[in-house]
């Protein structure tokens, strides 16, 4: 049920868009209202989550370190894995965001003969990297529908993505890559017993939703083609705040648009929000400088400082009686 439930939900959402446009004719709802609502949920929710996380206290300085700390001058510091400056933290975050540094450290513990062995496991890192970079390129490529005139950089990116000119319209390499990567990420959750045990419906739903968006998009581009000029008119209407309903676009477009709307609307309220959360990870975004800079715990109650001089003054008689030396003398 943890797998079937989200799958049925995704298929139902696709069916809703298909029936809603093809048979009920609700083009304005699926082409205008829902995309705007989804965008509002995406932007508003994203900012809300960031601010909410930002408001939480940071009682300790807890960077995780994976290299030599800044020490004596002749000890070579690992400036990225154990940063002591802001620049080092930026470098570390860039590695984390762009190439998933900490996922690269993934290990697998296995019984090798009689002994227990720990080995490197890079498949998840590779799958995640392929998926995220394909996703980025696909999102940037889609800007061609939202900008007029289309910037040269977007066209160049598209040209590079369709480099092999297979078929007409030319096959995008990222389409192949993203389907492979998503399939891998799904299969991984099903076939590895440990991962399967801890996978929840809200792990599978985003995967199915992403696959749904991608498959609808691929079907639209290569199989059930739609009037691309009409699609651009709809998209341009949305981003110029003069939304229009264009007749004669196939229902597959509305399935794609609706699933994408659900995805971005759902984004801030789901685990997908790791996109914004990664920069707020306290173990990653802090410099390991707790020996050089005092970190003040915001929970510290506002107490008056009681110095040793005051303490000594208060218990002077008792200290003298016990024969202890006094600083004041």
């Amino acid at each position, binding site marked *: 049920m943890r797998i079937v439930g989200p799958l049925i939900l995704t298929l139902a959402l696709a069916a809703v868009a298909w029936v809603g446009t093809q048979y009920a004719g609700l083009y304005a709802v699926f082409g205008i209202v829902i995309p705007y609502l989804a965008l509002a949920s995406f*932007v508003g929710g*994203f900012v809300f989550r960031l601010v909410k996380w*930002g408001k939480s206290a940071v009682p300790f300085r807890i960077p995780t370190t994976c290299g030599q700390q800044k020490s004596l001058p002749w000890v070579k510091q690992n400036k990225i894995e154990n940063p002591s400056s802001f620049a080092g933290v930026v470098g570390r975050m860039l590695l984390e965001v762009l190439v998933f540094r900490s996922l690269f450290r993934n290990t697998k513990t296995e019984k090798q003969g009689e002994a227990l062995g720990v080995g490197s496991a890079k498949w998840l890192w590779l799958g995640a990297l392929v998926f995220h970079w394909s996703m980025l390129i696909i999102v940037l490529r889609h800007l061609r529908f939202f900008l007029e005139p289309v910037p040269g950089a*977007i066209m160049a990116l598209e040209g590079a993505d369709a480099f092999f000119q297979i078929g*007409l319209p*030319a096959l995008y390499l990222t389409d192949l890559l993203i389907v492979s990567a998503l399939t891998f990420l799904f299969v991984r959750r099903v076939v590895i017993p440990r991962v399967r045990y801890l996978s929840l419906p809200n792990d599978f739903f985003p995967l199915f939703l992403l696959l749904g968006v991608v498959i609808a998009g691929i079907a639209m581009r290569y199989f059930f083609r739609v009037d691309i000029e009409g699609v651009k008119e709809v998209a341009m209407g949305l981003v110029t705040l003069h939304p229009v309903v264009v007749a004669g676009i196939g229902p597959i477009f509305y399935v794609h648009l609706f699933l994408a709307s659900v995805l971005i609307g759902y984004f801030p309220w789901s685990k997908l929000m790791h996109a*914004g959360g990664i920069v707020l990870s306290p173990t990653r975004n802090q410099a390991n400088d707790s020996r050089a800079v005092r970190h003040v715990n*915001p929970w510290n109650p506002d107490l008056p400082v009681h110095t040793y001089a005051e303490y000594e003054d208060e218990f002077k008689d008792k200290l003298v009686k016990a024969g202890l030396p006094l600083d004041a003398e």
Partner: protein
Amino acid sequence: MYKGGRIIAFAALFCLAVLSPFIVNLANAAPAPETSLDTPAINAQQTKECVASTEYMKDNHMQLLDEWRNDVVRDGSREYESASGQVYEKSLDGTCLECHSNREEFCDSCHDYASVDPYCWDCHDGEAS
């Protein structure tokens, strides 16, 4: 907020990035192009008829051209019978561009608008043969 300035700056940057198409289009957004059918060959036709219906051609013309190219180049099959029984030569220069001689207003206007860069014109010069 701990380091609230940076968090707000990041949130603002995120909004700017996501809403950038809205902002860019405030300044200049070109309207959708109109495809022009105003050519001498089309105007001279009694019944204005293409090799397939307008709806089909709008969505699938690239597919048809791809098939025609493969048929001609690989199989030497040059004749195409349309739904109405009319027989056409499978030729971009000889059939399509014969009527649609206004490549810039007919082909390019939509292709540019949708940022499609077909490689037809790598070989064909866009003039009727």
